[in-house]
C-alpha cells in the first residue's frame, strides 16, 4: 500500500517534472540568437525523458519493458530532438533517418516486423532521400566567401520558449490521459488473426510435411464437390486455442480414397504453425480494408501527377525577393570591397542555379 501511495503521489509529479525538463531542454537546444547550448539542452531533455519513463515505471512496476525499449526510445527521441535542433537541414534529415531506424526497432519490439522494414524502406529509403535531394536543390546560392554560411532562417528559430511551453502543456495533458490505464500487453502469440490460418492451406501443408505429419504423397482432402461441379472445400478446421496455439484438425487424403485426420493433439503437431506478421498485415489489408488500398493508390497517383505539374511550373522571382537579393548581393560586394557596380534597377539578375526558371517568362 505504501508503494501504491507513493506511486500515486510521485508519478504525476515525476511525469510533469519530466515533461517540464524535456520542454526546458528543447527550448535550450533550439537554435536561437545568442547561446544555444544544445548539449546541455539535450541532456536536460534526456533527463526529462528518463524522469517520465521512471514515473511510468513507478505507476506499474510489475510490467516493465526490457532494455531494448529504453535504448530505442532514447535513440528515437534523441534523434528527433536533433532533427528539430540541428541548424543544417541535411543533418536534420539524416537524424530523421536515425529516428526512423530507432522507431523501426520499437516496431520490432512490438512484433510488427513487416512494418518495421516497410518503414525503413519507404521512409529512410525513399522519402528521406527525396528530402535530401530537395534540400540540396533548394539551398541558397552560395556566395564566394561564405560557402558554408547558414541561412538566417536556419540559424534562428522562432519563439522557442513559447513553442516549448505549448509542447509541455500538450505533452503533460497527453501523458496524464494516457496514464489513466496501464494497458499491459499480452504475448504476441495470441494474435486473433490466427484463425485465418485456414486461408493458408499450403502453409499448413508445408508445416505439417516439415513436421513429418504429412507424407509426400498425401494432400489435404476436399469435401463433397458442389452441384455445379466446383471442387469442394478443403477440410481444414483450425482455430486459435486458449493459449494462443493453433488447435483443430486437418483431414488428409492419400492414395485413391484413403483419408486420415491430423489433430493438434498429435505430439508432432508443429508448434510454430500460425500466422506471421506480414501474413496478418496482408490479410487485414486486403480482406478488411480493400477500399483503403484503392484510396491510397489514388492518393499516390494524384500526388505523382501533382508533383509533376508543380515541378513543371515556371515561376519568377518575386519583386520583393528580387530587391532583397539585389541588396544582399550589393552589400556582399561592398563587404568584399570588390568593384563598386551597383545593379541597375532593371538589370536582369545574374543567372543562378535556378535562373533558367525565373527568366522563363511564363507567369
Amino acid at each position: 500500500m505504501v508503494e501504491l501511495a507513493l506511486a500515486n503521489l510521485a508519478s504525476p509529479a515525476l511525469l510533469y517534472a519530466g515533461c517540464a525538463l524535456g520542454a526546458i531542454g528543447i527550448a535550450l537546444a533550439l537554435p536561437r540568437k545568442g547561446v544555444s547550448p544544445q548539449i546541455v539542452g539535450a541532456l536536460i531533455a534526456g533527463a526529462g525523458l528518463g524522469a517520465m519513463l521512471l514515473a511510468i515505471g513507478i505507476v506499474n512496476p510489475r510490467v516493465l519493458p526490457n532494455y531494448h525499449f529504453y535504448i530505442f526510445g532514447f535513440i528515437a527521441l534523441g534523434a528527433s530532438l536533433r532533427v528539430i535542433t540541428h541548424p543544417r537541414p541535411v543533418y536534420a534529415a539524416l537524424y530523421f533517418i536515425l529516428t526512423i531506424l530507432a522507431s523501426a526497432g520499437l516496431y520490432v519490439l512490438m512484433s510488427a516486423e513487416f512494418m518495421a522494414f516497410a518503414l525503413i524502406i519507404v521512409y529512410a529509403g525513399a522519402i528521406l532521400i527525396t528530402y535530401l535531394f530537395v534540400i540540396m536543390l533548394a539551398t541558397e546560392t552560395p556566395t564566394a566567401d561564405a560557402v558554408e554560411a547558414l541561412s538566417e532562417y536556419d540559424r534562428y528559430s522562432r519563439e522557442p520558449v513559447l513553442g516549448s511551453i505549448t509542447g509541455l502543456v500538450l505533452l503533460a495533458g497527453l501523458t496524464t490521459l494516457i496514464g489513466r490505464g496501464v494497458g499491459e500487453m499480452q504475448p504476441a502469440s495470441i494474435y486473433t488473426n490466427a484463425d485465418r490460418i485456414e486461408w493458408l492451406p499450403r502453409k499448413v501443408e508445408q508445416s505439417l510435411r516439415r513436421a513429418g505429419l504429412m507424407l509426400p504423397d498425401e494432400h489435404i482432402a476436399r469435401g463433397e464437390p458442389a452441384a455445379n461441379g466446383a471442387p469442394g472445400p478443403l477440410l481444414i478446421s483450425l482455430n486459435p486455442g486458449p493459449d494462443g496455439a493453433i488447435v483443430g484438425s486437418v483431414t488428409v487424403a492419400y492414395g485413391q480414397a484413403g483419408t486420415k485426420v491430423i489433430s493438434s493433439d498429435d505430439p508432432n503437431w508443429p508448434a510454430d504453425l500460425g500466422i506471421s506478421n506480414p501474413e496478418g498485415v496482408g490479410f487485414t489489408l486486403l480482406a478488411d480494408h480493400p477500399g483503403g488500398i484503392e484510396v491510397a493508390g489514388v492518393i499516390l497517383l494524384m500526388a505523382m501527377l501533382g508533383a509533376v505539374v508543380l515541378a513543371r511550373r515556371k515561376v519568377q522571382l518575386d519583386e520583393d525577393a528580387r530587391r532583397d537579393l539585389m541588396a544582399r548581393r550589393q552589400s556582399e560586394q561592398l563587404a568584399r570591397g570588390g568593384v563598386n557596380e551597383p545593379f541597375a534597377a532593371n538589370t536582369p539578375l545574374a543567372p543562378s542555379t535556378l535562373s533558367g526558371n525565373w527568366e522563363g517568362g511564363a507567369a
Partner: protein
Amino acid sequence: MSGLAGQLAIMHETLGSLALAAGDAAHAQPRFGTGVGAKFDVPRLFGLIPFIPLLACALCGLCAAMKVKTKLPAAITVGCLLASFGLTIGLYAQVHANPGDFAIIHAFEWINFQWGQSEAQSLTANFSFYADSLTALWMLFVTGLATLIALYASEYMSHDVGQGYCRFFMAFSLFVFSMACLVMGDNLALLFLGWEGVGLCSYLLIGYFYKKPSAVAAAKKAFVVNRIGDLGLSLGVMLAFVQFGSLEYAEIFRKAEPFLALARDGQWQDIPWTVQLIPILLTIGAFGKSAQLPLYVWLPDAMEGPTPVSALIHAATMVTAGVYLVARMFPLFLVSEHALTIVAWGGALTALLAATIGMAQFDIKRIMAYSTVSQLGYMFCGLGVMGVMGGPAHVFTHAFFKAMLFLACGAVMHGFAGQLDLRKLSGLGKMPGWRIVTVAMFVGCINLAGVPFITAGFYSKDTILGDAFANPAMVPIGWILLITAGLTAYYTFRVFFRVFVGPAYYEPGDELHAHDDHSHDHAHANKDHGHDSHGHGHSAWQPHPPGWAINTVLILLTILSFAAIVTVFKADGWLYRMVTNSSAGAGIAADHHHKFFGFDAHAAMKVVSGIVAIAGIAVAFVLHYSGRTSAATSKADSLVPMLGPIPRWAQNKWYVDEFYHFLFVRPLWLLSVVFAAIDKVLVDGLVNVFGWVPKALAKTARPLQNGVLHDYALRMAGGVALLLLIIVLMVNRGDRTSAAASIPPTDNSIGTLPAAPAAVDPIAVSLDPIRAKAQEAVR
C-alpha cells in the same frame, strides 16, 4: 345676376313673415337650445353645389395640360360658379321653406368605419352636406361673390393668359369647392377638409407669383400659422368625437342638449371639463383661420397674392370661416363657461390692434388687410358677446364692401403698375376712366367706416356694439370696439382722401406683379395692356383704367353693398332670421339688457357709433384732405413727431412679427439644429459605437492573422493543448466526484472518460431556468 335678384326677391317676400315675440326683437326671446329643428329632405341635386367648382377645377387642370392660351379657364370657372350659385339659391329656397329645420344631403361615403357595436367604435364622416339657413347664408355670398370675383379676375389676370391663368382658376375653383365643403359639411371632419382645403388654396394663391420670395414666404407663413390653428381645431374635433361619439353636427347638438340646459341655469360645475374645453380648442382653429390674435400675422402678408384672391379669400370668404365655425358650433360654445369670453376678448383686442396698425400703413392693400383683421375681430365680438346676429350679419355685409374695396384697390394696382403706396397716388377720381373705381371705393369706405343710416356696414357694426353694451359682462369690449370704430373710420378715409381725391398725381409702381414674375410671358401682345407702354421707361407710361369686367363687378358690388342694408336694416330682419333659424341661434341671452348710460344699448349705439364714425371721417378729412397739395405729405405728418415712437411702432406692426420670430421661429430653428446635431452625434454616434466594438475587437485580433504559418500552428497547438487541459481537469474532477476507490489503479482499460454529469438533452438544460421561472410565474 338673376340669382342674386331672386335672392333679394325671396328675401322681401319673407320679410316679417316670421312670428316674433314682442319687444326688442334682437334679444327679446331668450332661448337656450341647439336651435336645431327637424330634418327635412331636399333633392340630392343640391349636393352638386360643391362639386361644380371641383369640376371647374378639373377642367382648368385639363386646360393647363392642354396648354390652353385663351381665357377659356376663366369662362369655365365663371360659368361653373354661376351654376353653383344658382343651385345655392335653389337650396336657399328649400331652406327658406323650412325655417329652423335642416336637411342632410348625402353625396357619398368618405370615412365610414365601424369596428364594434358601441357608438365609440364607429367613425362616420361622410361627404354629406348639412343645409340650414346658416349654410344657405354663407353659401349665398360665397358662391355669389366667387362668381363676381372670378369675372373680375378674368380681366385682372389677363397678363397671365397662357401662363398661370389656368393655375389661378384651378386654385380659385378648388377654393370654392373647399369653402363649400367647409360651410356645407354635415360633420366636423368634412369641415376640417374644407378648412384645410381653403388653407391649401390660400397657400397656392398667395404664392401665385412664386418667383417673389416675399410671396413664397407669405404663403408658407399663412399655411403654417393656419396649421397651428388647425392643430387646435383638430384636437377640438377629436375631443368632440370622444365626448359625443360622433362627428356629425346633428348628433353632437343632440348630445349637447342636456349640457345646454345646465348652462342656461349657470350650473357650470356640472358640465364636464372636457365638454367645456371643446369650444376653446375650436376657437384656436377659428382664430387661426380668421386671423385673430395671436395668429393674425399671416393675413397682412397674404396680400402678396393677386388682388382678386385677396378680395375673395382673404377678405370676404375664407377668413370668415372662423366666424362660421363659431356660429355653427354655437351650442357648444354656450356650454363652455369661458369660451365665448375668450372669443370676445380675442376679437376685441385684435380689432383694436389691427386698427392701430392700419392707421400707420401706407400700402393701401395692406391697410385693407388690417381692416379685414380688425373687422373679423368685430365679428368674433359679435358672437362672443352672445349677440348671435351681429357676427354673421357683419360677415355678410362686410363680404360685399370689403370685396369691393379690395377690388377697387386691385384696379388701382392693376392700372398703376403695382403702385399701392398712398403717398405716390393722389386724386384718382379726377383722372379719366377712374370714376367707377372712385365711386366704388367711396361706397366701400363709407360702409367700412360705418357712416350712419345709409350703409349696411353701419347697421351690422351697430348691432355688435349694441350687443356688447347690452351684455353686462362685455361692456369693456364695447368701449374697445367703439374706439376701434373711430379708428376704422379714420384710416379708411385716410386712404380715400389721399388716393382718390385731392391733387391728381401718380407714380407708377416698380412693376406690375404679373410682369415682374412672368417677364417672358406672352401677355405683352395683349391689347388690354398696350404693348408699347412697357419697356420704354416711365416717361411714356400711362395708367390704364379698368376695363368692362372690373367695372361691371365694381358696379354690381356697389349695388349689392347698398342692397345689403335691407337685410340688416331691421333688427329682426332677414339676416336675423337666417342666423337664428340655425344652430347659431342656439342661445340668446335673456339678461342682456344692460343700459348704455341709461339708454337702451342698441338704440344708443345707433347714435353714438354714428357720431364716432363721422368724427373719424372728419379727422381724416382735416388731416389728409383739407389743404393737401402733394401726394406725399399731409397735415398728419406734423402730428407724427408729437406721438413719439408710437407711429413708427405701429407702422412696423408693433414688431409682432419680429417678436414671433424671436420667440418661436428662431428657437424652434435652433432646436432643430440641436436635434440634427444630436441625431448625428449622439443617436447615430451610439449606433456607430456599437459598430465600432466589433471593429475594435477585430483590430486587436487582427495581428493574430499575420500570415505566418508558425503562429497559426502555434495557436492551433495551443488550442489543442488548452482543450486537452480542460479535458484533463474535467476528468480529474469527475474522478474526484465519483468514488475513486471503485476504479482500481491497475485497470486494464485505457482510461475511459467518466460519464457526463447528468445525461439530459442540452436544450432542456439550457432552457430549464427559464422554464422554471415561467412555471413559477404561472404559479
